[in-house]
């Protein structure tokens, strides 16, 4: 899986391309950890090109969410694909990580 980071006006966008599985999960933690360490607390994970997630990937998302919140910020997810939506719903994690339709809209109501 490949990750890229882009600084936007009011948030940092992290995009992941590929499968968020046990191989990619530690990389996501590392990428988000660096973003948070650099002082960016509002993070949007753009999942448009993330075509798969498993429980390891879900664990990494929760870990990243905790990192952002402990720093006084938040992590939100956007553009989730059908398999990711299915896994979020079956594990009830959509209550904690609510998918947003667009990355731009994830923090727009704050």
């Amino acid at each position, binding site marked *: 899986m490949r990750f890229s980071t882009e600084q936007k006006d009011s948030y940092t966008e992290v995009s992941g391309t590929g499968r968020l599985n046990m191989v990619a999960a530690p990389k996501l933690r590392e990428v988000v950890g660096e973003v948070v360490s650099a002082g960016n607390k509002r993070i949007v994970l753009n999942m448009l090109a993330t075509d798969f997630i498993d429980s390891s990937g879900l664990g990494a998302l929760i870990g990243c969410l905790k990192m952002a919140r402990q720093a006084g910020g938040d992590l939100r997810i956007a553009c989730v694909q059908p398999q990711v939506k299915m896994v979020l719903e*079956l594990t*009830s994690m959509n209550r904690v990580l609510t998918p947003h339709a667009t990355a731009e809209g994830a923090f727009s109501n704050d």
Partner: protein
Amino acid sequence: MTEVLAQRAYQAPATPEAIDELHTELDRIWEVASFVPELDQMAFTTAVIESASNVVQHGVAVPGGELRLAVTLTVMASVLQARISEIGAVPSPEMPSGSLPDDDEESGRGLALIEALMTTITVELRGETKTWVLSREIETPA
């Protein structure tokens, strides 16, 4: 209804890299079995990867041995079946919990996910080989 329409087998040392390779095998079987509805493909792929990841993460090789992952994927007209074997592992007959953990826990959702996605799950123990047999009935049979 039990005629095998597509089948693939995969075996490798139980390493994280094997999970990506197995995922590619799953993509290949759907190229052949494209009649399987997308929801069933998605559910089956997710459960197989969860189960194989469990072998890689929690399987313990017998002293001096190598832990291997062996998977057979079978597509029938109305059923999808996977046999996921942990070969050369220290026997551990106990089953992990299938209930969902607290929202802030970072692990422990794998079995609950498999249970939600599969019609039947059985575990066979034979010496140093433990095999998970996962089946999902196709919602709209071909």
